[in-house]
């Protein structure tokens, strides 16, 4: 809720005073696949990060970046002829990218499971952060076999968790507007897991 409000405020501020259009997202969802293992609906996804040199420079100056990953599983149904959608699963977590200049290592911290990984290069760290493999989404028993489901994924940079002085710059500079947008696939349970 707070994030939504802040996004709206950010958008209104940008549209009103800056007038700078939001740049095309430099976070790209390369693929999103679903499959089932042991009656669990799991997914694989690969997210490509293409950072602006400004952001790369910021990372190398030990500015921590927080990326928000949002994954939703929505169920489509029809009521009195109208097509409606209902959310069944919603997962939101943050991953933090840090650089330690002293050791010259890049560290990724998954705040959902508190898993920490160190990398000697930024590209390696970003590739790892963008890889979702064998991600457990839902139990198949909770889903209806004949219902159409949609899996959506979105990855974006959380500008509000940047260092305070950088927030204003991030609001005014399109290089910091990193958002993949929603990428979705439709799955129909019989085809997927029967």
């Amino acid at each position, binding site marked *: 809720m707070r994030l939504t409000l*802040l996004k709206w*405020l*950010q958008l209104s*501020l940008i549209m009103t005073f800056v007038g700078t259009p939001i740049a095309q997202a430099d976070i790209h969802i390369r693929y999103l696949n679903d499959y089932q293992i042991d009656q669990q609906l799991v997914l694989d996804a690969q997210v490509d990060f293409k950072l602006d040199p400004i952001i790369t*420079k*910021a990372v*190398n*100056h*030990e*500015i921590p970046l927080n990326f928000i990953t949002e994954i939703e599983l929505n169920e489509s149904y029809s009521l009195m002829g109208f097509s409606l959608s209902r959310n069944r699963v919603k997962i939101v977590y943050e991953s933090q990218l840090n650089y*330690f*200049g*002293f*050791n010259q*290592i890049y*560290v990724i*911290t998954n705040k959902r499971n508190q898993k*920490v*990984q*160190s990398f000697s290069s930024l590209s390696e760290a970003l590739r790892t952060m963008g890889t979702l493999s064998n991600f457990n989404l839902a139990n198949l028993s909770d889903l209806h076999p004949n219902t159409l489901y949609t899996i959506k994924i979105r990855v974006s940079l959380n500008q*509000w*968790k940047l*260092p*305070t*002085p*950088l*927030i*204003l*710059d991030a609001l005014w500079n399109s290089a910091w507007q990193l958002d993949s947008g929603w990428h979705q696939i439709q799955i129909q349970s019989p085809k997927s897991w029967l």
Partner: protein
Amino acid sequence: MKKRIKLFLSSQYGWLSVISSILLVILMVMSQILQNASQFAESYSTLLFIAFFGIILLVIILVKTLLKLRQQYRQKVAGIKLTTRLTLIISALLGIPLTIVFYFSMSFVHQGIDQWFDVKTETALSNAVKLVQTSLDDQTRRKLNSTQQALKRYQQDLINSPILTLNKIGEQLNARELSLYNSDGQLIAYNSQENIGILPTAPAPRLFQQIRKRLSYAAIETQPGANSQHQFIHVILPVNDLLNNKLYALQVIFPIPDQLSNLANTVQVASGQYQELSYLRAPLKTSFTVILTMVLLLTLISALLFTIRTIENITRPIRTLAEGTEEVSKGNYSLTMPIDRQDEMGQLIQSFNDMIQQIAKARNEIKFGQQQAEMQKLYLQAIIKNLNSGVLTFDNHMRLKTLNDATNLILNTDLFSQVGNEIGDILNQPDYQALNGFFEQVFPLFREDAKPWSQQLSYDDFHGRKMLLVHGSTLPSLDQKFNGYVIVIEDITKLIKAQLHAAWSDVAQRLAHEIKNPLTPIQLSAERLNFKLSSKLEDSDQKLLARMTDTIIEQVLAMQNLVDAFTEYADTPELELTQLDLNGLVKDVVNMYKDPKANWRVSYEIDPQCPTLSADPAKLRQLLHNLIKNGLEACETIPQGRVRVMTQSLDEHHIQLRVCDNGNGIPETIKNWIFEPYATGKPKGTGLGLSIVKKIVDEHHGQIQVESSPDTGTCFIIKLPQTQ
């Protein structure tokens, strides 16, 4: 308490104070956040937007207030000019210092931020990092060398009895953890000083690849996700079992000395913060600029709004006074202005209210006085208008101010059209020439001591001479000097005539009584004297006596005629009224004056429609004789004298009788006095003829007028009523 808060919020400064205070606190918090108050960092964006929209709100309020001022300026609301002028002055007084302070604050902030990142600091920090890293590298090399020496010494023992040897090596090297793996990564033995029972972390596959290449590895490593406090020296050496042709990997974990670790940690943290701050230099400047700009705007706008409100409060009583003055200038004296303060302005408004009340009271009194004066004036005007005396007033410049009808009547003129004109200009006009003599007599009578005077004057105009009693006085003024002149004119002609008539009547009665009685004995004595002595005297003396007695008798008869005339004038017998045919009477009398030898002629022109009238025939006969004789006497010097007697029926109730001659007319000086005894200038006659005519006309309740001019002669016009 709640009431007080509500009262405060509903006041002029309430919401403005609240908004300004909140924004000030927010900006202070934002400033603290920027200066590493990380506990509020998550609220920074929210505070930023609240501050931003708060400033926008203040700008909107300011614009609205300025527009309201502009509208009031256009509508010329009372006091708005003062408000605008004071607002501009105070805005300049506030704006200029604030802008200067803002400029220098910006400069100091920018310079301060730049000074954080000077070259010396950056170099020192970089050198410190290198120093720590060199020291750690040295430590690493030492640990690698000592491990290699220990391995060289105990290599065969390690292959034969790895557990014991690891313990021995561990104690010798003072390592935290030792472990032995085969080349496939399988753990063979391990030794740990801290975590006994927990398997060691296996080296990464890439390190086994390095071992298989018979290469050693030594590096400072950090536990995954941890900082430098959890760093350690990681050494991996290949162990060759030449007998069995096998390859093992010995992994040794050395702790870094605490002192070095703490120093390295401090340097690392400082280096990291410096790196972060060096990147945030420009954003910091931007953020401080934004906050300072917001502070400037907040201060300036709040100050302006408070100033405008304060000035409006200060000028409100002035505005109230101005509105009150405007109302008073429109004549509204019933106004009472509200007093909502106890200061000098309140006293001023109270004084103004008192003044208005006093003015209203005075105005009412003046109005009442004016009404009274107006009524008095109208009253006096009515009196003056209806006075029989003429009243004239002049101002001190001798301009005619007022006059009444009686003035025009007495002076036989019309001066109403000359009101406002100077008397000199009036008298120069041909129509008012006759007034010259009158005013030449009057104005010298006004004296400097301003005392009133009275004077009997004669006034001659085209209608004859009038006797006037004139009163004069100067008009007073507030400064005790004279303010003009007033002249009161009374026509006393009739009064004098009446007095003359009474005097002559008295004289006539005395004459009749004292002279008429001795006349008969005188006449009889003269006749007897002539009779007795005539025979005794000689012819000459006899003739003388006869002539003398004849003279006596003749004079006695003349005196007797005179006395008879006086008796007639003084006598007031009862009229013997009968229905008289005036035309017949006129014919009879005129016929008596038929004399073909005479150089004059008497004729009549009668109106056949003339009715009979109730009159005394003897009196009217005498009237006709007197007027015809008077006409003939007037025509004595004319070669062809002519007297005409005319009758005319004027209306149902009046008959006009005119007796006209073509003589030389009557001098104007005596025109008004010809009906008085002895007013005639003729050598002949008793001097009572016209007086008796006037008396007879008066006895018949008629009117007599005379029209005379030297060219056409004189006409006596008698108007008699048909019935008495």
